[in-house]
């Protein structure tokens, strides 16, 4: 068995690990962003106490504290629950949330390997199917907890998710019609190049986006659709009886679902891994320029460092006694931003020297992995793709947080009204409209009128 035989399996394993790690790395960041966002929107301090050696790192340490706390807490199993199903529910919720991520592409390809976990023919249908399976986690939790409030929460969640799945699926159909494919890779590829190739900039694409995004809020049980855990009515809803890591799994599943919803929306409507006006082929060709452009970010970081330095003048730091570890905080931030600036200048110099176009696999592996393909441009393209998609995902997640702290909760009949009587007819009409539109402008309005792609 040679290395080349094992390589496909290693690649498959690497892709799986990457997908899981990608979600799990954004999770703590999101929990931090949720708290900070809440604090900004509601005009209060937010997390600002936990620290490492006196450095509070803008509240980031709180997330670490949370993880330790949730692991160390006693795992209470109430006497009246249906144990097996009760224990299975959080696991189902979390694993389904992670599974959904496997069809999202991070780039067109890297050294001939596709940059996503699996290329199943179903594509987006798989996402819809997996989201459907997510109902079981919530439902089982509600039922197995064996109390009325949890059961009501579980029932609400499942009814709501089943109702909004329809509008979600029909909005996705519009994107299928425009792209002529259900594969997320093909949909992202179609949106490469000019920004008006993005699905959201077509009339039916825009309506589909609004419907899809609204349905995504309902599917992830986020405000204003968080009735399953409406604390004023249902204590904690379906996760009332859970504590310790089991509760953490539900908590993480909610955030993982947000990430998945944002990534699918970004891929369907906002060009996925594509930068506007730059195709992956152009990125490959001009990989050195991309590196040089990274140096342009350096002045921004220097400015951030300057701003961080001004924190010293804040009354808070003025009032601290001499020798307090927190006095070092502004300097730590300055150091971090300056380090980022230096790193970007370094990347820019590497680009100016033309290193990206010379970097090959033979060189990296000391000649062990022989390949004629050039490694550098592919690497740059992949990193740009992942960064762009991550930026879009983070913006989507921020939108979730923004809405949560701005909009109050729906009443249950309003929620059902919106789902069945407004969104569903609109989604159905939109599908008809999209079909007619695609029949008249098969390559898009602007391309059909001006004859350019």
């Amino acid at each position: 068995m040679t290395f080349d035989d094992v390589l496909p399996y290693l690649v498959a394993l690497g892709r799986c690990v990457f997908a899981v790690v990608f979600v799990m790395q954004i999770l703590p960041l999101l929990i931090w962003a949720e708290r900070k966002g809440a604090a900004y929107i509601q005009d209060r301090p937010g997390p600002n106490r936990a620290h490492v050696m006196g450095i509070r790192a803008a509240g980031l340490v709180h997330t670490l504290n949370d993880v330790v706390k949730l692991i160390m807490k006693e795992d209470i199993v109430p006497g009246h629950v249906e144990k097996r199903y009760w224990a299975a529910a959080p696991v189902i919720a979390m694993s389904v949330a992670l599974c959904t991520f496997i069809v999202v592409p991070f780039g067109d390809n890297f050294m001939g390997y596709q940059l996503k976990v699996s290329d199943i023919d179903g594509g987006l249908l798989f996402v819809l199917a997996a989201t459907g399976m997510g109902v079981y986690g919530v439902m089982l939790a509600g039922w197995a907890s064996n109390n009325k409030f949890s059961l009501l929460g579980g029932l609400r969640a499942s009814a709501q998710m089943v109702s909004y799945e329809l509008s979600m699926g029909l909005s996705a159909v519009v994107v299928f019609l425009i792209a002529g494919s259900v594969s997320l890779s093909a949909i992202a590829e179609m949106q490469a190049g000019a920004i008006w190739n993005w699905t959201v900039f077509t009339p039916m694409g825009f309506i589909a986006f609004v419907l899809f995004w609204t349905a995504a809020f309902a599917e992830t049980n986020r405000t204003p659709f968080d009735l399953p855990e409406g604390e004023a009515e249902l204590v904690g809803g379906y996760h009332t009886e859970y504590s310790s890591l089991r509760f953490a799994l539900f908590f993480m599943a909610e955030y993982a679902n947000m990430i998945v919803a944002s990534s699918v929306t970004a891929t369907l409507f906002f060009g996925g891994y594509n930068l506007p006006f730059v195709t992956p082929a152009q990125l490959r060709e001009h990989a050195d320029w991309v590196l040089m452009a990274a140096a342009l970010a350096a002045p921004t970081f220097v400015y951030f460092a300057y701003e961080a330095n001004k924190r010293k003048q804040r009354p808070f730091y003025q009032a601290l006694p001499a020798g307090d570890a927190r006095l070092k905080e502004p300097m730590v931030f300055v150091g971090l931003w300056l380090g980022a600036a230096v790193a970007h200048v370094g990347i820019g110099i590497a680009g100016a020297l033309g290193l990206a176009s010379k970097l090959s696999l033979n060189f990296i592996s000391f000649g062990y992995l022989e390949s004629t393909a050039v490694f550098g441009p592919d690497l740059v393209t992949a990193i740009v793709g992942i960064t762009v998609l991550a930026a879009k995902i983070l913006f989507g997640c921020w939108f979730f947080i923004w809405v949560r702290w701005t909009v109050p909760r729906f009443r249950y009949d309003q929620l059902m009204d919106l789902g069945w009587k407004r969104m569903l007819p609109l989604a159905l009409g939109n599908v008809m409209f999209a079909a007619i539109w695609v029949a008249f402008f098969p390559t898009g309005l602007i391309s059909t009128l001006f004859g350019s792609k």
Partner: protein
Amino acid sequence: MFEAVLFYVFSLVAMMSGVGVVTMRNPIASALSLVVCFFFLAADYVLLDAHFVAVIQILVYAGAIMVLFIFVIMLLNLRHGDQLTFEDIGRRSIVGMGTAGLLAVGLFTALGQLPVVLPAQIPADYGTIAYIGKALFEGPYLLPFETVSALLTVAVVGAVVLAKKEI
């Protein structure tokens, strides 16, 4: 080889959970074993290159229909007190076995009519959505497909008429 092992493992789990559907005492457990059964059937479909059928199996059966089943069971709150007695099971097993026998006869007749010789060349896009779409909307199955859709509409209208007191 690897695929064969996977096929037997998936089929075994599917059959075991299928047996679980009728032997489990808790109604929720029965319904959940049916979900597991659907899930592993879908895995078998994937091994047979029928990705679309697999995804639809999960999307429609496991994701929508079984959710409604479990929903109803939860609302009715069937618990251990509602277990069937032995007499009930004895009487119902006759009906069940009769139905199973009919189904077996039907299946074997259908299998006997299958072309045993597989086509030498399986088309490259076999099992893809495009292939199934062409077969359903352009190929020989257009009429049966559209008839089924009309039948479903009739069923929906019938359900609404039966369920609604006043329309």
